[in-house]
């Protein structure tokens, strides 16, 4: 059977159509040809020039040069454009928040002295129809951690690894992680001292382990930690190191305390924030603690952030720490700006390949899903982004985004509004009739 070669524009239309109509059908066989592929497998970001990538059944089945196009495959000529793995946002409240300040549409964090914490489960509330999903997907984000954040209590709850297809089945891994606020954020929840925060953390871990050892005999035992039985059960995997726990912490002293905690309890720790991480970079590397940081932070916003510098990413990487990025204020709405964070890190000394890794394979490694996501390798999910320029540049945007081997739509509520108001003339009917279908 003859292969159908499509232009990029035609491929768009096909992509949009297929995203709308093929929700239940299996992904077809797709071949991307002639790409400048940063596969993230191997040195130098695994760059392959003139690469062909074949996806079938939702996964990558071949990567290389001059591959034969399988029968019946749809082929797309990348014309030398850059292809990367889909971006993986290592920390977000995607699907849990629509409008930050609106209570009804914001499930990111419990209010007041609500009793449950560690047992709150993102999978119970994740909304794949959120408009944040297409907006971020159109920016090249295909995978994300969606996790609740702590309310009045220190533990945030259970996060999930999700894809950004917007499909009902987009949760890829439930109960993928736990989180806890330490440092100043933890102190504010624990008697206003950092000592209190660490003491509560230890108590909680020990109680969760004790509960797990004998759940039946635990129900009537008096508890000091303020954790419900459900919380103890939910915390148990993290407490014994079987589940990653994201620990929000900024200062060098707190990072050292975290290193001690990890050693004492055998935790699988990911540091979130780590604004002074560069001051303890070698220790973090030795302790194998990966770091999710905002590489733009360079202001002494708190005393625990006196060492804030835009060189943080480069110095952590140079010491051997696995890094990834997040930006709290733009947060879940603008995960699409992760490449800009990475570009700024490069401008401040981070090697380019390391910046791409921070956007793709590193988050997958942190959460133990690198066997499925984060690189362009045979057997991995077909999460790919085709870019119209250097992915880290301000002017570059994706021209095609594939998730689990399917082309996805790049149309968003924002592009619909743009198209509606592009022409402000009165017209035959009001603007509300334009693009309403």
């Amino acid at each position, binding site marked *: 059977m003859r292969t159908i070669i499509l232009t990029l524009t035609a491929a768009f239309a096909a992509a949009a159509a297929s995203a709308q109509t093929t929700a239940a059908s299996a992904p077809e066989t797709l071949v991307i040809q002639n790409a400048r592929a940063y596969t993230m497998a191997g040195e130098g970001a695994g760059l392959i020039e003139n690469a062909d990538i074949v996806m079938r059944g939702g996964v990558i089945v071949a990567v290389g040069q001059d591959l034969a196009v399988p029968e019946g495959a749809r082929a797309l000529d990348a014309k030398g454009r850059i292809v990367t793995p889909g971006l993986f946002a290592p920390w977000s409240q995607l699907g849990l928040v629509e409008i930050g300040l609106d209570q009804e549409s914001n499930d990111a964090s419990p209010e007041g002295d609500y009793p449950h914490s560690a047992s709150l489960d993102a999978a119970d509330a994740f909304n794949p129809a959120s408009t944040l999903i297409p907006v971020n997907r159109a920016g090249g984000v295909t995978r994300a951690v969606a996790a609740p954040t702590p309310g009045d209590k220190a533990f945030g709850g259970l996060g999930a690894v999700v894809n950004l297809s917007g499909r009902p089945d987009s949760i890829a891994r439930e109960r993928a992680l736990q989180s806890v606020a330490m440092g100043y954020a933890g102190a504010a929840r624990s008697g206003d001292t950092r000592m209190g925060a660490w003491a509560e953390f230890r108590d909680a871990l020990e109680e969760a382990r004790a509960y797990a050892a004998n759940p039946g005999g635990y129900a009537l035992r008096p508890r000091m930690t303020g954790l419900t039985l459900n919380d103890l059960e939910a915390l148990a995997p993290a407490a014994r190191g079987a589940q990653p726990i994201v620990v929000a912490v900024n200062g060098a002293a707190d990072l050292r305390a975290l290193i001690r905690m990890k050693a004492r309890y055998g935790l699988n720790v990911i540091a979130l924030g780590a604004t002074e991480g560069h001051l303890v970079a070698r220790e973090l590397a030795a302790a194998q603690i990966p770091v999710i940081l905002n590489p733009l932070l360079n202001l002494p916003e708190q005393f625990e952030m006196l060492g804030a510098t835009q060189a943080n990413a480069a110095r952590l990487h140079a010491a051997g720490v696995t890094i990834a990025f997040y930006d709290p204020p733009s947060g879940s709405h603008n995960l699409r700006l992760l490449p800009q964070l990475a570009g700024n890190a490069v401008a401040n000394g981070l090697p380019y390949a390391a910046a791409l890794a921070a956007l793709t394979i590193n988050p997958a490694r942190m959460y133990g899903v690198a066997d499925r996501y984060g690189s362009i390798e045979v057997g991995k999910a077909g999460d790919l982004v085709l870019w119209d320029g250097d992915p880290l540049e*301000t002017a570059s945007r994706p021209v095609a985004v594939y998730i689990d081997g399917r082309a996805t739509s790049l149309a968003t509520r924002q592009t619909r509004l743009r198209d509606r108001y592009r022409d402000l003339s009165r017209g035959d009917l009001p603007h509300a009739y334009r693009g309403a279908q």
Partner: protein
Amino acid sequence: MATIFMGRAATLAALIGLAACAPQPKEPQPGALETAGKPSRWAADPFPSTYQPYASGVTAIRGATVLTGAGTKIDNGTVILSGGKIAAVGGADVAIPDGATVIEASGKFVTPGVIDIHSHLGDYPSPAMESTSDGNEATAPNTAQVWAEHSVWPQDPGFTRALAGGITSLQVLPGSANLFGGRSAILKNVPSRTVQGMKFPGAPYGLKMACGENPKRVYGEKGGPATRMGNFAGYRAAWIEAADYKKKWEKYWDDKEAFDKKKGAKPAAGAEDAKEPEAPTRDLKLETLAMALNGDIVVNMHCYRGDEMALVIDMAKEFGYKVTTFHHGVEAYKVADLLAENGICAAVWADWWGFKLEAYDTIRENAALIHAQPNGCAIIHSDDQYGIQRLNQEAGKAMADGNRIGLNITPEQAIQWITLNPAKAMGVGDRTGSLETGKMADVVLWSADPFSVYAQAEKVFIDGALMYDRSDPKRSPRTDFEIGQSGLGFTGGAGQ
């Protein structure tokens, strides 16, 4: 969800909540006001600028791509800075004065100093704590009597980071909790012991007003306004009172002038001595509003929604004042024609959205569509201590998205979104914002195309003086707060 889990609580407070928009002069004098070229009868600035440019020789930058801010681009251009002013701008043929320090800048870019029309530096400084949170006088819906400069902490390290991002002038606004938030301060980004030492000489004051969600959220359970209609009733009642106050003072000045004239003349025989008119009591709140009505103070209105902007435009006509800029105009693209027809700028982010419902309808082409109107005036602003460090990148994103829908925006136009347009909207466009002969020598030398994510401001000149040099630690300011905090091998300072 009031969580500090992720840090930067102050930024969010500034953004979603609450931060995130004179009497008797005869002769023009330092700090005196002018309206349409004539001295205003309203108050001189009682806290006048003491800023003086630092020493500078003659500097020639040559070989760079120059985006002049005046709408032109010069390849292999030359810019001469002399006596604190732009002395010449042109091609390779511009003569280099004898004794000039020559900077070879082939492959690099030169632009005017970047200007942020919407900042809270100094008012919400770092470190962000209760003790330093001075940006919102959220005690009443109308606090037109407060002045942002009385909160500005000149030691905010944020000023130094902004300098390393190419910022040479900025407007510090009070927050947006109130219908009338107070007066803004327009500053040159030069470190000083006092805020007066930073004040832009001769710049007019701005007034911060706010539409929509913030005032009604803050005052809904504190006596109102609790609704958008309550917001408008509050604005209009205040303008009515201010108009009366203005009339009272104008009558007093007329009467006083007549009295003084009569006193100087020979009294007519038998005429009784006229009684000297008594000055009305000053009211700081009404004075600021009256000066806005008189055109002495520039009105900056925080307004997300397009429909609210249209209402504000009519209100301004009702009371005879001018809104110069809508800030945070997330929906400006929906009424871009209306804004252009009324000569109003829209200051926007490139892509922030969704932190509250009135910020839900952002589009990435917003700035470009505002710009594309005939006489459209687009400005990219920050409202953020990190955003202010890379307004160039924000403009770059917005330009790229505009061009993707075929708006053909050139770099020489887009640079105006962060230079000349904000300068004009702040009332200082005749002095800074573009590289034109005679203007202040506020200049940035970039390592690369400033719209690139990889570009760094290498040298920043303010009034001709080299105030920041990425390669020279002696030209990198460090605030009092940061000095001596280097025990952990951390140095602090502008280029962090």
